[in-house]
């Protein structure tokens, strides 16, 4: 095996030196009846040539990722321009083959990157403290809910129904044994935003109000108003962001009064990669710093007064506090946090603003064109960033598969995947990647493939 340095002769010599005659004797401490007496039934070794051919063959079975396919699929994972430098930097072995910076003297590269990442997350979310990252946006949200319970010592959490359904499922899993009552609040079916009735659910037992903005339907929430409602009963406002590019144009959740902000950082230079690895951003107020889950990097000095960085406030963490820790998280998403840092520093202040502006303009254009089509409408009136719901005159799931097969377009996400009663609704996402020609092609395809005679044949 080419990854194992020693030759058979060297191995034999080493075995001799440790007093053994055969490699099998290395496992004498395992009871005999537990030792596997056969070979594993896994494939025989492949050469690089064979292996790559196999994976290329499988990759070709994913037409959703084909170059010719234009896509308007978002809903928590977004296609954006990724500067070439991002992959080059994360491919440096000094970064990707290092581990958690337990030894600061020889890990300053990783540590300074995380310090910059924490700073960028604070700047974008409008918060004072950010951690070194979480697994993804969904688990970051679950951790935020657990933290809100710790901070307030209250046990009820109100979650807006316009939060990403998979995020809500994850929160539900995390809190099921934590003594937290998770209450789902309906969204306003006219605006697509959090309902104004939501305030009625808030009371002095409420630990947190959880909202997403822009929400799952692409509508931007009035975060400041929601913060006011939460704070009026002494609850925290937890804001989730799945499309982090929005932070380049929208008022930061922190500036709106949020107490904990979590976000999915995939939009910052991370490929779609069928759902992961992505990176969760987690930020809060300084007064809650000691309740934050996960790793934190802080500034430190050596005896000569030289600045460096170390993992700090570790007494919150599992390796010291064990069952009393703020979270069980150990490994986070270091390399993906690096990718996000490289992305944000490359795009910079102006680039992030420009990407956000292009998303908004192209989305507005697409929404206008689609809303002019016969039979199509846009059911929600709330302001939008780069996603919006379309109501089709036909079954949306059928329409999406027809767009894929006839026009090679991924038209969006049929909402019936999560909302069984919304059979004709689909969610469209437009980013800087989608050209005007692609948008026009989508509009054209929608207008023809959903013609009445078509629909008839489908129903029959």
């Amino acid at each position, binding site marked *: *095996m080419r990854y*194992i340095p020693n030759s058979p002769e060297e191995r034999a010599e080493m075995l001799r*030196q440790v007093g053994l005659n055969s490699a099998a004797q290395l*496992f004498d*401490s395992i009871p005999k009846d537990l030792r*596997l007496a056969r070979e*594993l039934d*896994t494939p025989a*070794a492949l050469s690089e040539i064979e292996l790559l051919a196999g994976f290329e063959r499988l*990759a070709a079975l*994913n*037409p*959703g*990722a084909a170059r010719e396919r234009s896509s308007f699929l978002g809903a928590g994972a977004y296609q954006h321009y990724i500067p070439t430098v991002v992959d080059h*930097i994360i491919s*440096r072995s*000094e970064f990707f083959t*290092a*581990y958690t910076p337990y030894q600061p003297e020889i*890990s300053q*590269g*990783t540590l300074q990157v995380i310090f910059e990442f*924490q700073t960028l997350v604070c*700047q974008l979310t409008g918060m004072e403290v*950010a951690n070194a990252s979480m*697994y993804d946006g969904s688990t970051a949200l679950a951790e935020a809910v657990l933290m809100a319970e710790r901070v307030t010592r209250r046990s009820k959490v109100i979650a807006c129904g316009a939060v*990403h359904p998979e995020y809500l*499922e*994850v929160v*539900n899993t*995390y809190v099921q044994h934590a003594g937290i009552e998770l209450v789902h609040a309906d969204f306003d079916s006219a605006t697509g935003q959090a309902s104004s009735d939501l305030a009625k659910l808030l009371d002095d037992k409420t630990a947190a109000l959880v909202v997403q903005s822009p929400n799952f339907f692409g509508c931007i929430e009035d975060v400041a108003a929601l913060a006011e409602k939460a704070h009026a009963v002494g609850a925290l406002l937890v804001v989730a962001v799945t499309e982090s590019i929005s932070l380049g144009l*929208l008022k930061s959740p922190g*500036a709106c009064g949020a107490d904990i902000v979590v976000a999915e950082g995939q939009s910052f230079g991370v*490929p*779609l990669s*069928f*759902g*992961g690895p992505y990176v969760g951003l987690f930020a809060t107020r300084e007064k809650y*710093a000691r309740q934050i889950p996960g790793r934190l990097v802080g500034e*430190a000095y*050596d005896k000569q007064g030289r600045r460096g960085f*170390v993992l700090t406030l570790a007494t919150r963490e*599992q390796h010291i506090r*064990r*069952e009393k820790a703020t979270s*069980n998280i*150990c*490994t986070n*998403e270091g390399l993906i946090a*690096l990718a996000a840092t490289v992305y944000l*520093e*490359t795009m910079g*202040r102006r680039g*992030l603003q420009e990407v956000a*502006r292009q998303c908004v*303009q*192209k989305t507005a254009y697409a929404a206008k064109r689609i809303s002019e089509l016969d039979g199509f409408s846009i059911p929600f009136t709330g302001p939008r960033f780069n996603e919006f719901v379309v109501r089709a005159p036909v079954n949306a799931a059928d329409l999406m598969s027809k767009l*894929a097969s006839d026009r090679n377009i*991924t038209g969006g996400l049929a909402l019936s995947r999560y909302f069984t009663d919304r059979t004709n609704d689909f969610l469209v996402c437009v980013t800087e990647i989608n050209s005007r020609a692609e*948008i026009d092609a989508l509009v054209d395809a929608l207008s023809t493939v959903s013609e009445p005679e078509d629909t008839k044949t489908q129903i029959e």
Partner: protein
Amino acid sequence: MKPEITKVTSHISHNEALIFERSQTGRIGYRLPPLDVDDVPIDDLIPKSFQCDNDLEGLPEVSEVDVIRHFTRMSTWNYSIDLGMYPLGSCTMKYNSRLNEKVARISGFANLHPLSSEDDAQGALQVIYELQEHLAEITGLPGISLQPAAGAHGEMTGVMIIRAFIDARDGAEVSSQRRTMLIPDSAHGTNPASAHLSGFSVKTIRSTAEGFTDLDHLRELCEGGHVAGLMLTNPNTLGLFEKNIQEICRIVHEAGGLVYMDGANMNALVGVARPGDMGVDVIHLNLHKTFSTPHGGGGPGCGPCCCTKELEPFLPVPRIVRSKTGIPAGPANSTDDVYKLDFNYPQSIGRVKAFFGNYGMMLRALSYIQTHGHDGLREATEAAVLNARYIAKGLAGEYDKPFAADPMHEVVFTDKLQTRKGVHTLDIAKRLIDYGFHPMTIYFPLIVSGAMLIEPTESVGHQELDQFIDAMRSIAREALEDPELVLNAPHSTRIGRLDEAAAARRPVLRWKPKQAATAT
């Protein structure tokens, strides 16, 4: 006496400020195509009060060259596997193959959206299915979910499955009496933290003087019917195979509990022994340890959860399953196979992560398994254990080895022989840096005073092992003859030991502009 250090010497190390200190107004590092649709005033689209009003102040403005130099310079301050042996115990820092990186970047996978239709993602789903099959064979446990994103996440998933199973078996009322999770005193801190997240209280099992789970204490704790399960690492964190594993499983099962195995140390077992054959009910694996996906400076990981047939209904959803399309069953991977997402598991603990988990890590792990083949997997296990045994022998004279039993893939030593001169484990670790090695895991497991846990993995050759042993012996000599040299180490790095206590007392967790920094 200055010892001769053969492996490292000082070289140019650039200084590099924080990017925020480098930023210059007006520098640009990107270019986008011009906007090709009408440029509508943003205020017509989004209410002014919803828009950012600080012009993203503070975000850096740098050129692409600035970015490349910034990160390249910082990268040179890191130790990495590619530089040399990285013997962090229980972390399995093995070689991260470039081929696996290439596989993960194939555009048909890298550009695939997780909400693509099943028709649009058959190849991606097949990858998940095949990896599940291989992991089932390797662990002897047929139920698999690849959704957990890391080891601790897999632990949480496994422990929640135990809870859901017991709740279903005993009914809510009876099972509410069964809320104790047993964890050995040598366990990783994530074990008790994960158990707590699942609503269990933790009771600690003692280890014997020989370094094994104390069976009498286990029996005692199992009395009374409160025990839901045991979380056991095997080989344990002392590097020893729990030789009584079958008896341990029997005791826990007879008490009505289940056995969870922390698979952090599976690199000692792949192809040699299977947790499923030992009586273990559920286990997590670390693809970023045993299956070589890169550690990435602290993630991403992937922590698959593998369980018995009995526990399968409780795994997270969606499950990735294979079905035949009406045509009679053909050979595996025939074109008749269709891969599907199956949400229909009403007893499932639920979803633990959006989408399907850290998919890119699954590609790399499958590539690892295919590159090694079944014989290569066993060969890697043998090499990993042989290397640890070689170090155990090589250091036994100079360092205190607290447990007599032969280690598996990692070995623990202590600083007992060095403390007389005031040299402690931390100092030995720091001095090792001067010899060109990343230190071992230190002060873990907690039950061993001054622990040094060394895991060489299979990715180290004979000569480098000898260099490591020589370096450690040399440090042992220095500790006797010139303790100051060791106490002030490292001497070769760009910064010295940092004042971590001060950093924690007044934490500075982000950069701020100068004026703002003094204001708060």
